[in-house]
């Protein structure tokens, strides 16, 4: 876990807002009276109070002693991982009801539990299950949400994540992302070189699938808006090419293999085009769009400086990109239909790798924060600028589809590892992610059911 002491804090202060003392102690981000009663080492933010909740073990009706997956356990782990909830351990429960009528609400209010989840998994066929869950507010003594969902052995985990999403959204007002996936590139030592793999894993790091592997580098994965395809750059054959690959079938098409650099693909919101960086024979990097169906290329920038890392705004109107046309790298944008580039970032001497939040309100980037490369976020409305990460070589920020969390790669003992951080900078945590050097994580869109 990244201790917050990693964060180079020159002043550890105390910010008081009239009548409200907030001490910031060494090793903590903030310490604020009763609001900060809990400090959890896994959460690098540490300051956010976790709400105590109870996910009661689900009942099981079927063959064998237990359901193939521990649905309640998966939900509890999801809520815990969000940094906003603290599920009580099973040993701390005074009762373990599996039906709403069996709940004694006072048993939970006595423990200060703010939300209770109960449910059952029922086997309805050879490979068919029915998952039912209910979320209760024990103080109001009311059900907040309840669903029954069909599942198979293979989708039981996904179904549990989906239940966690609904519970999380009901309790926080923020859409859950537990059923989403993350794509990333991992490199493991193999002989004298590396073995590169393009991996798609569940958000919790479980159920890894290798989409593509190669002895040559793989870079810059990008999700299609329908989550069914990944675009990426492969150096197979020792030259760069841009591919678009179907996840289900593994079929792929080579979309661009121009002489020189073919890099940094990113899908348009309608999934029909990619924005890419092409270098050409003279090596002058500029931004192009490519129509996926016709492979028609349109040049958007034509500048002798480096223009790269293009990304579409969610409304499809602009393409944001990195350019060093003013000296150091800064973020610019150009109308997707073509036109003049306009500078977007002015904070500091280095801002690169733009990514827009799906709600279009925030711009994430890599910034040079007093000599360290860190993930920062700029509010496009207020222009407020916030550094979110605390490493020295942090890279590749990518927003979760709910715009509330970002994932990025940081270095630990020389290896790349993945971390997530809330867009307010308060909850930061390490993500379990395979072996080797992990780079370039990209968060999937919301799943389609």
């Amino acid at each position, binding site marked *: 876990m990244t201790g917050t002491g990693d964060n180079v*804090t*020159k002043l550890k*202060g105390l910010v008081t*807002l009239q009548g*409200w003392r907030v001490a910031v102690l060494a090793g903590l981000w903030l310490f604020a009276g009763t609001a900060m009663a809990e400090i959890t080492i896994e959460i690098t933010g540490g300051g956010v109070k976790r709400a105590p909740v109870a996910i009661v073990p689900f009942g099981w009706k079927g063959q064998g002693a237990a359901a193939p997956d521990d649905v309640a356990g998966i939900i509890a782990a999801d809520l815990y991982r969000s940094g906003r909830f603290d599920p009580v351990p099973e040993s701390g429960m005074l009762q373990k009801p599996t039906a709403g009528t069996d709940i004694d609400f006072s048993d939970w209010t006595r423990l200060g539990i703010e939300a209770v989840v109960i449910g059952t998994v029922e086997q309805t066929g050879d490979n068919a299950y029915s998952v039912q869950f209910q979320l209760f507010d024990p103080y109001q003594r009311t059900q907040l949400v309840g669903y029954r969902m069909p599942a198979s052995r293979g989708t039981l985990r996904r179904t549990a994540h989906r239940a966690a999403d609904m519970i999380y959204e009901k309790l926080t007002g923020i859409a859950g992302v537990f059923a989403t996936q993350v794509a990333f590139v991992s490199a493991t030592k193999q002989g004298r070189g590396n073995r590169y793999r393009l991996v798609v894993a569940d958000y919790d790091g479980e159920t890894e699938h290798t989409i593509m592997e190669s002895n040559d580098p793989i870079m810059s994965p990008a999700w299609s808006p329908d989550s069914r395809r990944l675009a990426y750059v492969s150096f197979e054959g020792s030259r760069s090419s841009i591919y678009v690959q179907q996840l289900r079938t593994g079929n792929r098409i080579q979309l661009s293999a121009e002489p020189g650099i073919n890099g940094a693909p990113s899908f348009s919101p309608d999934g029909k085009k990619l924005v890419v960086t092409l270098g050409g024979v003279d090596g002058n990097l500029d931004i192009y769009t490519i129509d996926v169906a016709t492979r028609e290329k349109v040049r958007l920038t034509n500048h002798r400086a480096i223009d790269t890392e293009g990304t579409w705004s969610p409304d499809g109107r602009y393409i944001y990109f990195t350019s060093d046309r003013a000296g150091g790298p800064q973020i610019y944008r150009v109308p997707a239909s073509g036109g003049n580039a306009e500078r977007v970032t002015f904070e500091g001497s280095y801002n690169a790798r733009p990514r827009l939040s799906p709600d279009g309100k925030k711009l994430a980037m890599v910034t040079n924060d007093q000599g360290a490369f860190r993930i920062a976020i700029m509010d496009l409305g207020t222009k407020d*600028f916030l550094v979110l990460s605390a490493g020295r070589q942090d890279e590749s920020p990518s927003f979760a589809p709910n715009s509330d969390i970002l994932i990025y790669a940081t270095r630990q003992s020389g290896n790349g590892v993945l971390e997530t951080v809330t867009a307010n900078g308060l909850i930061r945590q390490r993500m379990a992610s395979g072996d080797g050097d992990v780079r370039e994580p990209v968060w999937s869109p919301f799943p389609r059911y």
Partner: protein
Amino acid sequence: MDSRFSQFVSVLLALVVHVLVLGSFVFAFDWERNHPAPRPLAVTATLVTADDIPPPVVQAPEPEPVAEEPDPEPPRPDPVEQARAKAEEQARLDELRREQQRKAEEERARLQRIEDEKEAKRKAEEEARRKAEAEAELERQRVEAERKRREQEERQRAENERLRREAEARQLQEQIDAENRRLEARNSEDMLAYMFAIRQKVERAWVAPASAPKNLECEITVRQNPAGEVQSVNVVRCNGDAIVVRSIEAAVRRASPLPRPPNPLLFDTNLRFIFKPEQ
């Protein structure tokens, strides 16, 4: 002598008849005069008085003595005189009858007048009664309307009072709710996010001078406007030298405008910072 006597008798008889007629007039007059009195009791009283007085008048010309008188007359010798007297008498009687007829007509006319007057009076009274009744009805309606108006006023007053109380209660509840929202917001993750953002911006703007002691601890208060622009910086205490104090003030001013809170309820004009470098 005889004719004189008979003349005298005739005159007497005429007198008697006149008295009789007059008496009946008096009687009738009295009766008529008293009759219109609305109360029957008064009529009775008047009748009693009338009965008491007229009898002597009516009795005096009682026919018995008069009936005895003519008896000696038939043997009167002079038929011419008799015829003439008779004719005279006849003429006189005719005259009398005409006179009586005229008087009776006059009386009828008078009675009719009285009757008309009575009718007019009755009508006037009826009219007055109707008018009085109408006025009474109007008055009753006015009083009723007044009563209703008062009731309505009272109801309105009570309703206004109720509404005022409710509005007061609502306002109080709104204040309580607003305060609760503020407290809740201040206990929320957003509050931490706000402080984190402020702290980071000031931190990033601060270049600690070489003269800053290892155990530096400076407390400053800052006033900001709603746009986050720093209005004033006040050093409460600081164990650093003038250069350090200046660097801290400069950092806060460089950090202006300070980040805006994620929730407007969290905004506070007055901020307090403690600068304390990591050990």
